């Protein structure tokens, strides 16, 4: 379980300067799929960087499975929006997926097996020997997801991972993600600015208002085994989407 309590982040030396994240409190249960919805500039990225232990928070408390987060935790994986920059161009797809495992203490044979399995899970079993830049954008993001899966995290943080692929590829990636989420039994915290995407994927959607705090929360009661056509035609989908739209729009306007 991920617990965030009274998280506050101020950049720079002055603790009274305008915060990027202020008084943010929420929890994510094990195996839950939570989407964080916020317009650009509301502090989503800062929040994720604090949660992942990449930058220290100014005050407040973050804990993952009871352990306070002070640096990047062992059982957390991060998928960035910009796949072309987060994959290493000098490594093949296989090596990109496998290299973090060595530093986690996984032995070579097991690393190979985890890599094969992860590449298979994202449908890239035959592409291991290619280089990331020889693949399309959607495939590159699948490599990044495979790398996260092979790491066997208990929680996956995703920072607008599908924001820079085309709509067709995007719905494919959404379904792929739901598939591996169920198969691997992991917790996902997914940041997006797209209302439809949030409702389609999540168990719960938290609306973030600047400076990042939870302004509104909805539970998505749509049945699982979601389908791009059926789920999106569900009356509940339309209702949730309207509610979230109002919540996003109705927040205090940022300066």
């Amino acid at each position, binding site marked *: 379980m991920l617990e965030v309590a009274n998280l506050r982040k101020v950049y720079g030396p002055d603790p009274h300067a305008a915060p990027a994240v202020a008084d943010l409190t929420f929890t994510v249960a094990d195996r839950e799929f939570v989407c964080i919805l916020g317009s650009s500039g509301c502090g989503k990225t800062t929040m994720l*960087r604090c949660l*992942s*232990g*990449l930058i220290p928070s100014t005050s407040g408390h973050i804990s993952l499975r009871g352990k306070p987060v002070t640096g*990047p935790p*062992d059982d*957390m*994986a*991060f998928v*960035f929006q*910009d796949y072309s*920059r*987060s994959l*290493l*161009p*000098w490594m093949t797809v296989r090596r990109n997926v496998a*290299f*973090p495992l060595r*530093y*986690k203490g996984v032995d070579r044979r097991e690393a190979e097996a985890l890599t094969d399995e992860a590449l298979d899970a994202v449908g890239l079993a035959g592409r291991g020997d290619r*280089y990331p*830049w*020889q*693949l*399309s954008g959607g495939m590159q993001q699948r490599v990044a997801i495979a790398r996260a899966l092979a*790491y066997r995290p208990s929680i996956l943080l995703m920072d607008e991972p599908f924001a820079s692929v085309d709509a067709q590829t995007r719905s494919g990636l959404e379904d792929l993600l739901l598939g591996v989420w169920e198969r691997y039994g992991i917790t996902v915290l997914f940041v997006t600015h797209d209302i439809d995407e949030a409702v389609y994927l999540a168990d719960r959607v938290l609306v973030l208002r600047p400076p990042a705090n939870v302004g509104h929360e909805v539970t998505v009661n749509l049945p699982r085994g979601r389908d791009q056509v059926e789920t999106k035609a569900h009356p509940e989908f339309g209702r949730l989407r309207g509610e979230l739209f109002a919540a996003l729009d109705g927040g205090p306007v940022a300066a």
Partner: protein
Amino acid sequence: MSLEGVQTVGSARRRTARTADGLPEGRVRRALGSRRIRDLGLKVTGVLTVLVALELCARLGVLSRDWFPPMTDTYVELAKLAFGHPLWTEIGRTLSGWALGIGLAALLAIPIGVLLGSNRTAYRLSRVVIEFCRPVPSVALIPLAVLVYGVGLEMKVFLIVFVTFWPILLQVIYGVQDVDPLVYDTARSYGLPPRARFFRITLPSAAPYIATGLRIASAIALVLAVTAELVVGAPGLGQSIVVAQSNANLPRMYALIIVTGLVGWALNTAFQAIERRLLRWHPSQRAEVAS
């Protein structure tokens, strides 16, 4: 130089466009192959034209025989030299200065560059010193080098190290500073320890810059080696050129000048080939382009 660049971009674009059209790859490759042969043909024709023109100028007396022998004489001399030991010894002498110099310069410049590139304060502290030392004309140091090291190999090495250190250093600094912060974030989020971050992330990221620095340094180092040999009389190709000139053996002098040119060309080609191999992942070297 710029024209050449434009051409390469143009031909790369045409190449992708063709493959995207769905033409069989084989046909594209064959078309490329025939173009390569035509390009080669044009290059050879160009060189031959110049050689024939020079030959005619010498034979018809347009260029004085006192200082310009016919090209055929030069080439006969070149062939004679190629089968004699002294030439290869001289090349070896010049190249050993080159290799030791550039090797030592790289050995010094790479760690220092990594340090200065990854530490802002250190970089600011050293900038003025670098900017001051870098533009000192290399030849101005020859008297000092002779004073300290005499006229042998050490003098050449000192000169080369001092001058090529700067371009390598600057390229390493830029390369280290240019590592994508997102790549660092990725590495940190996957718990890579600092040592691994350096060897797996920083060095490969900076490698294209380092390679460029070494290639620039290689050209400068050869010029310096030959200059030192010419001016000071340190043994090597440069000295042989002076000796041939003072013995009035003009074909030999020209033959040696050609050899010097060939050595430079060979070094540059070798560097490019190594770069192409080691950095095939880098955008500047990629043969394939993702759609």
